């Protein structure tokens, strides 16, 4: 084999590559964001598409997706985003499953006390 690929030369080349990779990584590091606080899954887009459909034609599908996302967040012990439980409750409510809806509204309130007034209002309305 040629001397060009002698171990010493290879090592020197490798370290040069590594050095430039470090510089690149460092440079890129300035532009990257901190890791997310929440496990997002489909919640954000799901909420948008529901608005668009006004009522939603594929409710069971959306319920399945969002429940799976919440489960996944729990399994990875990352956090369920604000509003996700409440939105799932809303989907249950729309499909006539009021018991599950109430459970989700209560879960939202427990996880995010900021939502207490709103969730209590929804729960009161459901009891009527």
């Amino acid at each position: 084999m040629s001397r060009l690929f002698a171990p010493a030369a290879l090592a020197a080349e490798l370290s040069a590559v590594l050095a430039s990779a470090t510089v690149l990584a460092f440079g890129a590091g300035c532009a990257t964001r901190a890791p997310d606080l929440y496990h997002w899954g489909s919640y954000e887009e799901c909420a948008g598409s529901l608005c668009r459909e006004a009522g939603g034609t594929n409710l069971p599908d959306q319920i399945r997706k969002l429940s799976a996302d919440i489960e996944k967040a729990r399994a990875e012990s990352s956090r369920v985003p604000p509003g996700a439980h409440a939105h799932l409750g809303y989907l249950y409510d729309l499909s006539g499953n009021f018991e599950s809806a109430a459970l989700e509204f209560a879960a939202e309130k427990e996880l995010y006390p900021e939502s207490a007034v709103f969730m209590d209002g929804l729960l009161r309305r459901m009891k009527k």
Partner: protein
Amino acid sequence: MSASRLRCLAICAGVALASCAATPPKEPDRTAFLEHMPRSILVLPPLDETPVADAPYGWLATVTRPLSERGYYVFPVALVDAMLKENGLPTAGEMHQVSLRKIDEVFGADSVLYVDIKEWGTSYRVLESDSTVSLEGRLVDVKTGTELWRGSWKAIRSSNEGNQNGLAGMLAGAIVHQIASSASDPMPELARGANWRLFNEGTTGLLVGPRHPGFAEDQKNRRSAPAQKAK
């Protein structure tokens, strides 16, 4: 050293200085924001000044994440929209007129975000196409009606971005972009970027909220800053 050489040095130094001095945007007065530091944000469906029917809900589907990641509780946008409609407010225009007292009563929100979509969509010209999102936002304290923050952001993406290949390249760029656009709408991603810049930009965005890990330190620094105006 000759005089001309000296002059050249001076000019070079001037150029170097000027290129460093791309002035960062000035931080607005944060007094009211700090005084009424909200924990939660109610996002109302946006006013829409565009002819694009998709714009309001397209935007609503991209706003929860940046605000939550900034450290605030964000009310579920679809449920809020449905509640307001159910209560006799079919349009965003009417929703934006709801009294803060009513918002406090029904939602218990600390603050309300009013957003106006100024531009939204892709315009095609012969050789290129531009996608644009232009937003204006205002955050208001529910208890007092005080304006806590105001900001705007315009994001544009051109089909010719980074394309230096002359006419043929431009043509190809426009065609590729048009094909790509019909397959996948560029707007959600552009809107996401615009929201991120509007709300999460250090100097001009929202202050870091209570659920953000950096909240305590940011508050401490701001409240002890000597520049803080005495009231």
